[in-house]
C-alpha cells in the first residue's frame, strides 16, 4: 500500500517534469535560441577543423 502511494507520487512527479519541459521548451524564443546555439557550434566545429588542418 505504501509502495503503491509512492508509485502514484512518482508518476505525478514524472508528469510534472514532462509538463514543465513542454512549458519550458515551447516558448517562442526557444526556436531562435536553438538556431543561435546551432550556429555557435557549427562555427566552433569550423574553427576546430581550421586549427587542426
Amino acid at each position, binding site marked *: 500500500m505504501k509502495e503503491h502511494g509512492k508509485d502514484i507520487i*512518482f508518476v505525478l512527479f*514524472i508528469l510534472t517534469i514532462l509538463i*514543465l519541459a513542454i512549458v519550458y521548451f515551447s516558448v517562442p524564443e526557444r526556436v531562435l*535560441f536553438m538556431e*543561435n546555439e546551432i550556429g555557435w557550434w557549427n562555427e566552433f566545429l569550423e574553427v576546430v577543423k581550421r*586549427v587542426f588542418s
Partner: protein
Amino acid sequence: MEIISYIIVNLFLFSSWYVLLFKKKNCLSFIDRLIGTFILGLAQIIFTEMLLGVLFKRLFAAPLFLLNISISLIVLAIAIASFTLPPSHQVRGEQESAFPIKGRKTTGTFPLPLWERGRVRGVWYILKNILSEFKDKTIQFFNIIKRDIVLLCIFILFLISVCWIIFTGYLFPSYTWDALWYHLPTVGYIIQSGAIQENITPSFIDLFINIFPKNIELFFIWNTIFLKSDIIIDLSQLLFTIAGVFTIYSIAVKLGLKEEYAVYSSLLFFFAPVIILQSTTNYIDIAVAVLFLIAINFLLYDDPQNFPENIIKNKKLPILLAGLATGILVGSKGSGPLFIAVLLVMVIMGKFIRYINPFNIFSSEYKKFSVKIIPPHPPLLKGGRGDSQGKSSFVLYLIYFIVPAALMGGYWYIKNLVVYSNPVYPIEVSFLNIKLFKGLYGGIIDPVPDALSRLSLLGKLFYVWREKVEYYLYDSRLSGFGPIWFILLLPSTVIAVFYAIKRKIYNFLFLSVILIVTFIIYPRNWYTRYVVFILGLGTLSFGLTLDYFKERQKTIKIITLLLVIYTFFTANSPCIMPWKIGEFVKLPAKERTIARHAPFNIDLQARQDYGLWVWISNNMSKGDTLAYTFEPLFLRPLWNRDFSNKVLYIKSENFNEWIKNLKGNDVTHILIKQNSIEDKKIQEFKRLVYNTPSWLGVSKNLAERFKVVYSDENYKVLRFGY
C-alpha cells in the same frame, strides 16, 4: 619570477591552514576542511591586504608576499607543534618508510629523541597522513562515480566545462560591463596607490568605486599583484564555483544522503548557465551565494541531534568558519547585511524552537538521518543537550560568529558611515517614514525590464525561469538558471519538503526556511544572478528526491543527464564566439586585448574607444601617469593589462591651476576629448608660444610641453613635459 612568487605564496597560504585544520579531522569532515582552508586563506588574504592598504598604505607585492609568508609559517609552526603524535607503538609499522633517519634503526618501540619526535616525525607523520587521506578520498570518490554511468557522464561533462572555463578565462581579458565599469578600476586604483582609500569621483559610477564593499575585489588584487598581469583575474570566481560544488556535497552528506546522491546534488549546482558563464567574469554574485551556502554548511554543525558529543564540544571551529564566511560575504556586497540578519534570526529561532521543543520533535529516537562522516551516537535527552545553556550559546555565537563577521565585513560600512554619514550610501535608509540615513536614492536605480514591469512577483519569476531569451549572458537578466532548475529542481523541492517533513529531516527544513526567506525578502529576486544561492535548495532537494524514489530513480537520472547535456551545449554566450577563439589562440598574450576582442555586450557603445584602448595598452608602461579630464565609458581600459601605469582624474576650470595639478601629480600623459575646454586651451597656449617674437626669449620648445602622441575623431593623448 612573478609566477613562482604567486605559486609559493598560495602554496604556503592554503597548505598551512589545511595542516592546521588537519588536526581537527575528528571534528570536521575532509570536504569541510577543504572548504575551511579556502575560507581561512581568503580571510588571511583580505586581512593582510586591508592591514597594508588601510593602515600602512603599502599594499604592494613585496610587503604582501612577506607578510603572508610570515603568517603562513607561524600557522604552520603552530599546526606542527600542536600536533599530538600517537604513541610510538601505534605508528611503529609506519616508521620504516615514514621516518628514514640515517644510521638509525627506525623499527621497534624505542623512543626517538624529543626533538626528532616533535619535529621530524611530526612533519613526516602529518605529511604522510595528509597525502594518504587525499589518496583515499580520491579513490573513494572514483569508486562512487564509476558505479553509476549517469553520474560518471555528468562528472565528465563537469570536468570538460571547468577546463573550458579555464581556457576561455585565460584566453580573453575581462570583458563584462560591471567589471570594466567599477570592479576592475577598484583593483587599478588600489594597486597604483598601494592604499585602500577614497578617490576623486567625477561621475556617479565612480562613486560606486568608493562606496562598494571590496572584499572580493581584494581577492581580484591577490590574483593580479604577484603576477603583475590581469591574465587570470577573470578566473577568480571559478574558485568560488568549485567551493560551491564542494559545499553542496558537504551539506548533502550532513543531511544524511548517500554519497552518490550528494555528488549528484553538488554537480547539478554547477550546471546552471549563470554559474558557468559568470565563472569567467569579474562579477561577485557566485562568490556571495557560495559564501552564504558555506556559512549555512558550517552552522549545520551546531545541531546536538545530529552530531556526537566531541563535535558539540568543538563546535567553536565550525561556528568560527561560518562567521568568517559571513563576514567576507558582508564585506563583498551592499546587500551583505541582509544575509547576516537572516542567518542570525534563523539561528536564534532554531535555538528557541529547540528550547521549547514543540511536539517533542527533538526527542525522536535514533535517527536514520544521522551524519555518516561522524560515528553514530546515542539519542540525546529531550530538549537537546546544551539548549538549556542559552547564555553560553549566546556568548559562543557572539565570540565566534558575530565578532569575526564584523571584523571581516564591518570596515566598509563603518568607513561609509564616517565619510558619508550613511553605512550603505548612496541608498537612503528609512524606517516607518523616518529617514535614518540620508542618501541619493532609495532602492535599486536600474529600471525593471519592460517585459516584467506589469507582472506580479510570481509572474516575474515564472517569466524569467522559463528563459524567454535568444541567448544566455553572464549577467542573466531574464534567464540564467537553465532548464534543470525549472524542469527538475522545482518539482524536486516539493517532493523533498514533503519527504523531510515525513522523515523529520529538520536540518533540511531549517536550511530550506533560511534559503526561502532570504529569497523572498531579497530585492529583485527574479534577477537570477542575485539569488544564485536558491539553486542550493533545488540541488539538495534533488538529492533527497533520489533518496525518496530509490528503486524508481533510473528514469529521473536519465532525464537529469539529458538536461545536463542540454545545458552543457547551450551555456555559451555570444560574447565569446568561436571565430574569436580561433583568432585569439594565434595571438601573443600581449595582443589579446579587450579592443581586439570587441565583445558583443559592449561593442556598440565602445567601438569608438577601441583605438584609444589599444594605444594605451601598447604605450603606457610602469612609471607613466595618465590624467583624464572627462567621464570615460569605462575606466578599466585606461590602465594597461599589467595595471602598471597610474590613472588620475585631474580637471580644473583654470588653465594654470590645471597645469600646476598635472605637475604636482607627476603626470606624463593627458587624455582629453577633441574640442574640449582643455583641448582649446592647449591649442591657444601653443599658438601663443609660436606667435611670441623670438627676441622675447621664449623657447619654442614650450609648445612641445603638450606633444600629441595619439589622436582620433574623439580623443587625444598628449605627452606632458615640464
